[in-house]
């Protein structure tokens, strides 16, 4: 929030510091990325409650590699992808792309960088303009960014179309004439026409049929090899992610809970959530009897995530410490990250418990301070007074035993009306 308020100042400063050294083979490094959506505002329009869609994500992506992101819907996968491309305001954290901090660049400078980072979306029906021909759709932004001049436009677009398996005579046709699979190819061609280095694919095959999915996946892999592309591949389909990725990150409620090479994450799973997620995938073999870890209930709301480890409400290994303090995200094995208290050393546990104690003490003090404020004190008095009155009435009539819900509702109502009177 501070950034947007005095953004001018920060931006001028950042131009000097934006050049950040990254190892040569690293294309993208993300440090503590956060994107909070305001969901409630107070009287003065200041946000007081946030939906923490992305809540502190860090990872490093090497050139030519593919990072797969999996997780249940609503865990913040799309928000993360879009934040990386600066499609949102108010993103916090560092996004180091090719030696520059994307988050701190001025708009004009970012425009120059924009062709390097492209995105493909899930719904190929919504993302294509119905009034332009296929050729125009594919070539339009390439021309805007001066990647191609007027004379070479037609040939350039045809070359890209050929790469994406689109026949030349589609050039003059309109997107509504095509099936979902063909449209997705058009979307991919549009992104590739800009000669990007990084392509964020947000559920690119989820809306397609299995046989068409295979065609598009094979094409994405072929293009990666041919053009040296780097992908972030977001999907809820674990088998697809496993097929296409080198590294895998598993998200839960805005955090990456496990991250590592594909092999280590799939064959040596650490986090209880990842284990449950993997075991839930149905296998196309009637003889396999799944040893399924059933997760209880639904994913909690990101507006009010559980305290401590966000997964503790559904975790079968939940311990006392889990509901008290969030686990640290750390490298448990070589290159394999995980945030779970199960992998704490004894010292870690003791340190974290001490910290939890301290936090709780501080919270208690803060709560007490809050309660001692004159307004809150008065409120508390009124509440107890109301409660007393209600119990008296209850005792008098003794009706309340019949239904359980009524007495609960009554105190609230009386309370409000009494407060108003005063």
């Amino acid at each position, binding site marked *: 929030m501070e950034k947007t308020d005095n953004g001018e100042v920060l931006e001028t400063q950042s131009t000097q510091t934006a050049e950040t050294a990254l190892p040569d083979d690293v294309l993208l490094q993300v440090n503590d990325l956060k994107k909070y959506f305001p969901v409630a505002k107070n009287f003065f329009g200041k946000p007081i409650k946030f939906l923490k869609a992305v809540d502190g994500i860090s990872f490093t992506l090497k050139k030519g590699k593919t990072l797969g992101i999996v997780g249940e819907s609503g865990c913040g996968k799309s928000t993360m992808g879009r934040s990386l491309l600066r499609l949102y305001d108010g993103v916090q954290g560092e996004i180091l792309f090719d030696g520059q901090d994307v988050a701190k660049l001025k708009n004009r400078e970012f425009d120059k960088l924009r062709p390097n980072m492209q995105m493909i979306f899930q719904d190929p029906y919504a993302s294509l303009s119905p009034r332009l021909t296929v050729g125009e759709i594919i070539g339009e932004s390439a021309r805007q960014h001066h990647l191609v001049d007027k004379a070479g436009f037609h040939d350039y677009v045809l070359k890209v179309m050929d790469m994406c398996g689109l026949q030349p005579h589609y050039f003059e046709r309109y997107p509504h004439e095509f099936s979902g699979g063909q449209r997705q190819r058009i979307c991919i061609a549009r992104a590739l026409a800009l000669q990007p280095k990084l392509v964020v694919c947000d559920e690119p095959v989820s809306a397609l049929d299995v046989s068409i999915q295979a065609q598009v996946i094979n094409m994405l892999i072929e293009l990666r090899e041919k053009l040296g592309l780097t992908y972030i591949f977001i999907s809820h389909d674990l088998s697809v992610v496993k097929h296409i990725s080198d590294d895998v990150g598993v998200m839960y409620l805005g955090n990456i809970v496990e991250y590592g090479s594909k092999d280590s994450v799939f064959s040596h799973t650490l986090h209880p959530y990842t284990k449950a997620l993997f075991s839930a995938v149905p296998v196309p073999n009637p003889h396999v009897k*799944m040893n399924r870890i059933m997760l209880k209930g639904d994913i909690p709301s990101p507006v009010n995530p559980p305290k401590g480890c966000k997964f503790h409400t559904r975790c079968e290994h939940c311990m006392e410490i889990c509901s008290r303090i969030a686990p640290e995200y750390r490298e448990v094995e070589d290159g394999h990250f995980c945030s779970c208290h199960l992998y704490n050393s004894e010292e870690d546990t003791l340190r974290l418990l001490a910290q939890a104690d301290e936090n709780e003490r501080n919270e208690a003090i803060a709560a007490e301070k809050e309660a001692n404020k004159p307004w809150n004190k008065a409120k508390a008095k009124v509440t107890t007074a109301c409660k007393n009155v209600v119990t008296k009435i209850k005792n008098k009539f003794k009706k309340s035993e019949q239904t359980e819900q009524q007495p609960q509702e009554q105190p609230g109502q009386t309370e409000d009306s009494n407060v108003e009177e005063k």
Partner: protein
Amino acid sequence: MAANKDNKHYISRSESRAIARENSKAIRYYEQRKKRKAKPDEYTTQMQDDNNIVEFDDLHTYFFSDAGTVKAVNGVSFSIPAGSTVGVVGESGCGKSVTSLSLMQLVQAPSGQIVSGSIRFKASLFKRDEKGKKIPVYEMEDDEYGKRFKLDEKGKKIIKKNELGGNVYEMEDRVVDIAKMPTEAMRSIRGREIAMIFQEPMTSLNPVFTIGNQLDEVGYLHIEGISKKQVKAHSIEMLKMVGIADPEGVYKKFPHELSGGMRQRVMIAIALLCNPKLIIADEPTTALDVTIQAQILDLLREIKHKINGSIMLITHDLGVVAEMADYVVVMYAGKVIEMGTAEDIFDHPMHPYTIGLQKSKPTVDGEVDKLYCIPGFVPNPIDMPDYCYFRDRCEMCKEKCAGAYPGYVQVSPTHKVACYLYEDTKEDGNGKD
């Protein structure tokens, strides 16, 4: 069709007019047939195999659209044995939903019509008197003269109540042909004997009524004579049965206040209200996350056990079918191309399409360098070729495949496939029989 050579979907104005004329004629004919008054005998038939509760027999369901006739279901035959789960798989547009909607007589009319074939269903219907009224069962009592009707204070006979508090009527078991049944008669089967669960529960739940209202309404509709208190108790009982932890709370909520998984549970509860024999689940978990999908599939299995019924499970996910189904039906472009037990289909897939479908999906436990790709796409449903519909995409195609559409080859007692590659096996199979 020759008017515009560039585009084979081009329709000239006179062609379009001719199509419209044909369509309205056909639609009028089928609509009248559905509205006719028919005696139950007219649509009573016999099961081919008494173990089945549903038999589709050469079912054709067409859509009479402006661009021509879409043969959405084009000669589908398979059966659902009692107490089993039958999985129907295939890519989108192959006619899975239209097959199941035909069974419910819910195909979008007037353009969509069951054109021919039959759907035999083992129903237990209300017995009717000459006037078409249901015949109630009355309470009896014994006295010294023998059995007598029990009377209430006003001297009226008392109708017997079942355990839910609904009236008991005389019933009869009858095998009906749903394809030939008038719409009126279908009412007593739809929702009561066959219930349906859809992919997106939000479209079938009414957003302005509470969950409780909607459950109760279905209860009133199907359990005649039930009292207000009893229907609420029954609704809450059903919510409990589908694993909702706080049924009284959910009863008071509106659909949008629930998560996708909870809404699907509510849909299952509504389906269960009348104790159906058959549940049709059309992509019940496609919109859900895998962890929630696992919960719902578990629930469906449990429910099937409890009501001792059958499930027709429609899905495009081979993993879901492998997990749930006893029998599998594979559809392609409105036809069944292969069917058999789950083991038949997954261990020995025979049709090139079934094989291709299985190879083109990556799995979590396996590893391949390159996914197999079925080339091309599904043919246009308006003018289907005369030869095998899969021929333009098939890599095992033989000379013979250019001929007529292949018939079924019975490769084992439970396994059937429509493909010329296995014609030799047919003779072997016949020899053994």
